[in-house]
């Protein structure tokens, strides 16, 4: 006889593992994808990613609540795990069970090795044909999946393929969660003869306040875009002043325009006395021109000791790129202030020898883009020449550096996309696991069919 409480728990678990819930969640997911796609008519792709998919609640049109991608993903994951726990039982017993568990452990270890080991390999130290590299990686993923299938067969027998392919789906879902939380991406813009050791993420900005008085290194304080958007007083510990972004004075995308006489101007200091900000809609996800948003903000600085204003300054990514930083004096020191794309420093630097943009003879049709670079890593004592070209990235210290773009004006500068995503191999391995699971399940059914026909 079951207690009333246990009955309720069983009902809840049954609901969470039900096929009906799966169908509803998949329906909601399709709707969310549709709504997110429509939203990209006006909003940028990364804004939509954050507001629709990488969140728990998506506010459609800014007011209607809808389950966000993270909530739907978590619910689908829970639904999948519970439905398997309810419907699929381990049928192995005794030595077969022990062998199955051991094989499963081996398969998981191999899967982990394929995902993590590939990540550690540096392509500076070896040359390998890219098609060979992809083939080898797929074979490695397929090998791990095959071992997992054997383990599933030992443990679940007839349902081995079903368990395995759903395990692949679980890996796929977790890899997206992992990527959304931990992966970092940016661009490294280098001109010929220049050496650069940082990447910039054009999806977000930061206010950099730099004390450059030390000749060896800059003392940098970073206020992230999210703080600037929030507005209000932002206390800058370690600096003699605080800052505040007046309400509505952060612009996700802005142009600079000449200031008209007599026009209200929030700026009281710096370049903002000559130019003003004109807010622009952010680059839409459907925009194929590759435009990026150029944020701007009016920032008021206040001297903490005297509580006196140091003025309201116009800061803008565009302005910083064209004119460099503006200088604020406080506490007997000079500070360089600039709004810039979010910057991440790397332990290595890339020196650009040359960038080559080849076209098919007699046409302007691109044939190939390539960058001849030198990787310099003082920590590891590495100085090595490498060529990066289309579909042939450089992998170094966990980063993948792709040939992404170039300076169209001079064709003497390259733009490398630098992706730090430890789980980049996981989707490939997950797909191989799903494939092996499907093929395996089909084989099991085929063998059973053949066996039944022979016996009958």
């Amino acid at each position, binding site marked *: 006889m079951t207690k009333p409480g246990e009955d309720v*728990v069983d009902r809840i678990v049954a609901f969470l593992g039900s096929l009906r819930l799966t169908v509803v969640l998949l329906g909601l997911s399709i709707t969310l994808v549709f709504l997110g796609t429509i939203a990209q008519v006006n909003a940028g792709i990364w804004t939509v990613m954050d507001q629709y998919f990488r969140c728990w609640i998506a506010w459609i049109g800014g007011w209607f609540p809808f389950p966000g991608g993270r909530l739907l993903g978590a619910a689908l994951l829970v639904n999948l795990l519970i439905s398997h726990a309810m419907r699929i039982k381990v049928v192995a017993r005794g030595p077969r069970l022990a062998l199955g568990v051991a094989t499963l452990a081996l398969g998981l270890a191999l899967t982990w090795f394929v995902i993590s080991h590939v990540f550690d390999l540096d392509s500076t130290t070896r040359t390998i044909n890219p098609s060979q590299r992809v083939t080898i990686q797929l074979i490695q993923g397929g090998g791990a999946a095959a071992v997992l299938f054997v383990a599933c067969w030992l443990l679940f027998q007839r349902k081995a393929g079903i368990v395995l392919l759903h395990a692949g789906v679980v890996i796929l879902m977790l890899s997206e969660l992992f990527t959304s*939380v931990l992966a970092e991406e940016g661009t490294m813009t280098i*001109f*010929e003869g220049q*050496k650069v050791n940082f990447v910039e993420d054009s999806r977000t900005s930061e206010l950099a306040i730099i004390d450059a008085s030390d000749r060896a290194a800059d003392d940098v*304080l970073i206020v*992230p875009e999210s703080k600037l958007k929030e507005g209000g007083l932002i206390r800058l510990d370690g600096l003699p002043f605080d800052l505040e972004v007046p309400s509505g004075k952060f612009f996700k995308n802005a142009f600079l325009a000449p200031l008209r*006489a007599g026009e209200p101007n929030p700026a009281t200091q710096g370049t903002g006395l*000559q130019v003003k900000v004109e807010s622009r809609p952010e680059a839409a996800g459907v925009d194929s021109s590759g435009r990026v948003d150029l944020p701007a903000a009016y920032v008021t600085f206040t001297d903490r000791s005297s509580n006196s204003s140091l003025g309201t300054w116009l800061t803008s990514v565009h302005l910083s790129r064209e004119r460099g930083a503006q200088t604020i004096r406080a506490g007997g020191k000079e500070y360089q202030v600039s709004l810039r794309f979010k910057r991440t420093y790397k332990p290595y630097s890339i020196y650009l020898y040359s960038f080559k943009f080849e076209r098919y003879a007699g046409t302007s049709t691109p044939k190939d883009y390539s960058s001849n670079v030198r990787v310099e890593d003082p920590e590891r004592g590495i100085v090595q020449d490498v060529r990066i070209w289309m579909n042939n990235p450089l992998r170094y210290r966990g980063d993948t550096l792709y040939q992404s773009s170039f300076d169209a004006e001079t064709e003497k*500068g390259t733009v490398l996309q630098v992706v730090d995503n430890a789980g980049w191999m996981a989707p490939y391995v997950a797909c191989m696991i799903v494939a092996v699971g499907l093929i395996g399940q089909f084989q099991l059914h085929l063998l059973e069919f053949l066996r039944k026909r022979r016996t009958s």
Partner: protein
Amino acid sequence: MRIAILIPLLLATASCGRQEEIRRYKAPKDPMWRMLGAIVPMKDATWFFKVVAPADRIGAYKEEILSFVRALRAEDGEIKWTMPRGWQEDHAGGPGRQACLHFGEQDPKLEMTVVRLPGDGGGLVANVNRWLEQLGLERASEAQVAGLVKKVSGTNLEAQVVDLVGPTRPAGGPRGMARPEPQAAPRSGEATLDNVRSMFTFERPPSWKENPQPEKSRIFEFRIDEPEGSALVTFTIMGGEGGGLAANINRWRGQAGLEDLGDQAVSRSAVPLPFVGTEAWLVEAIGKEKAILGVIALNPQFSMFLKMDGAPAVVTAQRSTFARVAQSFQMKGRHD
């Protein structure tokens, strides 16, 4: 039991997410850019010799560059030079470039661009300020500019050099040209159309019939009617850089029924031309049905467009008149 499995799962997914906080760290100095330039005025033109590179690369070659400048000589109104040992000359430069000289041992080699601009090329103060801004530095007054330039000794030419270091990389091409002094910028907000129009003087050819009430956003509008057809001349000012040189040229080419040009071809198709005391680009797009002549002056604060647009026979016949009118454009109160 089953609930016990679920709770950690839910907690694990719920706890994800990154909070961005204020950070403070030590960072290596940003790479700086250095520009070593020589300005050599001649009778009808001004010559610019300029080397731009990461700051740490030029120092070792500064004396070699200055020796090159000292060895420049005038022949028939042009400047000639002797190639130092190890230097290579490349004539395939960008717009207005006379030559590109490559030198140095490290790959890529350093590049000296040689540009010849008509007249005073915008003037010393405007050009030095343009370079300062390109390097991300503050503009300088006339007196400060005088302190930045140094006369080159040991040469018969009036050569002056300037050596600047700044945080941003100077771009080449159209954005690199001299721009008007900020105070000279027309401030449309405080002015009526008449006020803005009164700021400009230029030659008005008798065959150009002015429309005193041009369409919205146009400052001047003229119509040319000939037996072969007609053409419209407009002068427009826009805020900002007006979309850039390449986009404007290709837009006009499209209007003339021509195909877009690639970035390099676009640069080569534009000819430098003095315009309102600044440097601009003369552009032609001659199609079968329609032809366009244009002058584009791009600046971060405002850009100016002088455009003739009409029947190919009329437009091509007006080429020299159009160029003459463009070069006669002046802004009152402006002294470069």
